[in-house]
């Protein structure tokens, strides 16, 4: 088979799908891209067995059809060094020889038999659920929650984003048992109730390819796999098996104390004060009296301490609560409104952070952070 392709266009597609290739593959074939050409459409596949990314390019100048696995590293490394110019790929599927010709050069690579590449898992027809979702909504659902996912080998269900579909709304949830994010969209609904856990890696792959997407994304899934079909990309991934913990029951509902504060000011103060916190625990204490918030941290080992006072609107009893500064900073960085509301009840219960104003009426975002145990 033979085709002509623009070097830059090919590179951008290859770089997008190459993110899926793992550094520690068990199967050597997975270090390759699978190229298959049919009816003028070039399909490139990369996989790590758990997730598979497929991209398509419509080409004008093609000849023949077939498939071949081409080493990923050598191909991307070569293409990076080209400026925009047409490249001719000539592939002999019998000898597995790949010849790339540019205006002034010729490069040969040995490919491998494309049939050795693992099959893309199919969504089972009898359990298939289908849904069309706006690319932008899917992107913000993943982008807002992915930071809260865990890296816990003992509890794999926590290592992904839990996506729950119902006839009223769609909810994205992520938690590492210390912090939790719940992102709800009322403008995306499904006919039947369904839920699945999207692992962290495919979620971050999606986060990378979604910004370019303008159309609706087709989502299909069964009990084992999910497939996301975009205009030029398709991602198929294995889902995390198991039940997601019942997150709704741990979100405290009765939070009488409310603090409204400028998000950026709060964020910056925390960044400064946390420098003085103990580097192992990152404990910062928030003390609330009247309409004043005092953020303080200390590291006894080095005899350093930092305190900053901030104005806020506070309704509630005076209280002191401790948080891990890195978590609190992360949460504030993932909110976008100018003011945030922090709802609390006592120093042993979770604090809830909400945007003070809603930017989109279809959006409902809740971030929760468990405190650290400080002696009152």
């Amino acid at each position, binding site marked *: 088979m033979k085709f002509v392709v623009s070097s830059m266009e090919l590179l951008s597609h290859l770089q997008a799908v190459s993110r899926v290739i793992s550094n520690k593959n068990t199967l050597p074939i997975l270090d390759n891209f699978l190229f298959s050409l049919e009816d003028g459409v070039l399909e490139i596949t990369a996989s790590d067995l758990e997730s598979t990314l497929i991209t398509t390019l419509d080409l004008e100048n093609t000849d023949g059809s077939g498939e071949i696995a081409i080493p990923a590293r050598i191909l991307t490394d070569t293409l990076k060094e080209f400026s925009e110019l047409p490249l001719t790929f000539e592939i002999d599927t019998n000898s597995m020889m790949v010849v790339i010709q540019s205006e002034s050069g010729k490069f040969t690579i040995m490919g491998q038999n494309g049939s050795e590449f693992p099959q893309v898992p199919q969504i089972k027809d009898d359990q298939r659920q289908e849904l069309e979702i706006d690319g932008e909504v899917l992107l913000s659902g993943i982008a807002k929650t992915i930071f809260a996912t865990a890296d816990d080998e003992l509890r794999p269900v926590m290592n992904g984003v839990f996506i729950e579909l119902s006839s009223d709304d769609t909810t994205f949830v992520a938690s590492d*048992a210390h912090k939790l994010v719940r992102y709800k969209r009322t403008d995306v609904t499904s006919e039947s109730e369904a839920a699945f856990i999207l692992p962290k890696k495919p979620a971050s792959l999606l986060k990378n390819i979604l910004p370019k997407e303008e159309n609706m994304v087709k989502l299909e899934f069964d009990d084992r796999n999910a497939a996301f079909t975009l205009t030029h990309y398709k991602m198929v991934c294995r889902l995390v098996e198991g039940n997601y913990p019942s997150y709704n029951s741990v979100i405290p509902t009765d939070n009488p104390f409310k603090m409204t504060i400028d998000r950026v000011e709060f964020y910056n103060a925390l960044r400064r004060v946390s420098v003085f916190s*103990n580097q*192992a*625990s990152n404990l910062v204490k928030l003390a609330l009296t009247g309409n004043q918030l005092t953020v303080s941290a200390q590291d006894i080992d080095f005899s350093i301490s930092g305190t900053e006072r901030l104005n806020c609107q506070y309704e509630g009893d005076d209280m002191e609560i401790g948080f891990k500064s890195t978590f609190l900073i992360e949460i504030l960085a993932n909110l976008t409104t100018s003011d945030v509301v922090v709802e609390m009840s006592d120093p042993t219960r979770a604090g809830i952070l909400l945007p003070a104003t809603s930017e989109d009426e279809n959006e409902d975002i809740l971030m929760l952070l*468990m405190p650290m*145990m400080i002696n009152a």
Partner: protein
Amino acid sequence: MERSIVHMDLDTFFVSVERLQNSKLTGRPVIIGGASDRGVVASCSYEARRFGVHSAMPMKMARALCSEAVIVRGDMDSYSRYSKLVTEIIAEKAPVYEKASIDEHYLDISGMDRFFGCMQWTGELRERIIRETGLPISFGLSVNKTVSKIATGEAKPNGGIEVPHPTVPGFLSPLSIRKIPMIGNKTYHLLRSMGISSIGTLRMIPAEMMEGLLGKNGTVIWKKANGIDPTPVMQYSERKSIGAERTFDRDTMDVNGLKDLLVSMVEKLTFQLRKEEKLTSCITVKIRYSNFDTHTLQQRIGYTSFDHVLIPAAKELFDRIYQRRMLIRLIGVRFSGLIRGVQQLNLFEDTSEMVRLYLTMDTLRKRFGSGAVRRASGIQLRELEEKASHEDKESEEDAAARRQQVDNLKNRRWGYWR
């Protein structure tokens, strides 16, 4: 630059404190240690040493050797108080000091010779400590910690000597290799069997051969024998682990009782962790069978200071380590991998009620002592032991705990790595 390091050691510290409180003890052989046969000697007076008694010897043997000795149970609180007094005096005068154990201090007074002369300054400090606390203290002044410590040993009782730099080899050479702090029983016997008895001989052994013989430690020992020890005097060193262990009066294989004891030990230690705002990441359980076979097993865990995480972990380790149907002589638990910090609460596991229970119990313990509230399993244990030793006013457990405390404190310099 040549350094001037002082090592100060309180002579028979525990005995000296007891004598301050009870002058009748002066001039008589005194042994500090638990009353039961299984306890060990924590400290003994020079009068008792004449009979062959030495510290870490079983009480039973000590009593047999010296029947007229006065046996004192020991009061850790007053020892700590006096130790603090001494430390305060040293802290006031010395530029850099390190408290190596309850009765030992290292001082770095390099450069002091330009003003007073190190020997005069140290002598005056020693006199001041004796005057203000009434405790006899000895010191060694030399170029590094090892030589100073060995010198203190030579200065005792109640004296002080200086070993200036040029005389270090001459001072060390005739001494027994036992005097080097790192050489314990095993190493001593090994070296003795090779015909090495004095430090002078040890110095003539090639360093490479020592390494081949004893590994890395061999090199360190060889360096020490040559009066080389670059370790600095450190004002403060973070503790890396805490632990408790307990030797039984009678060997036991009552698994439930052992677990109850383990629980109460863990409970006490976790309270200590929380009080000091520390978290542990590694738990070790240790058992010693009646034939002195000692086994330890450890497990890494996520940073925590919670009873409900550590108690099941300790029990599980005990189940895994107690393999032989043999009586147990000693049981212990240790937390290591300590970091400073407080517990990050878990959304799914830590309920507010439970956290408040911990906080309330800790408040009670801070106010009324660490035994103010405890798990019921520990109380049962205490009652049983009270029954067992009714003639003793103080419950056996307290006595054992105190005995353990004495051992722990004495062992601090080995037990706590820096």
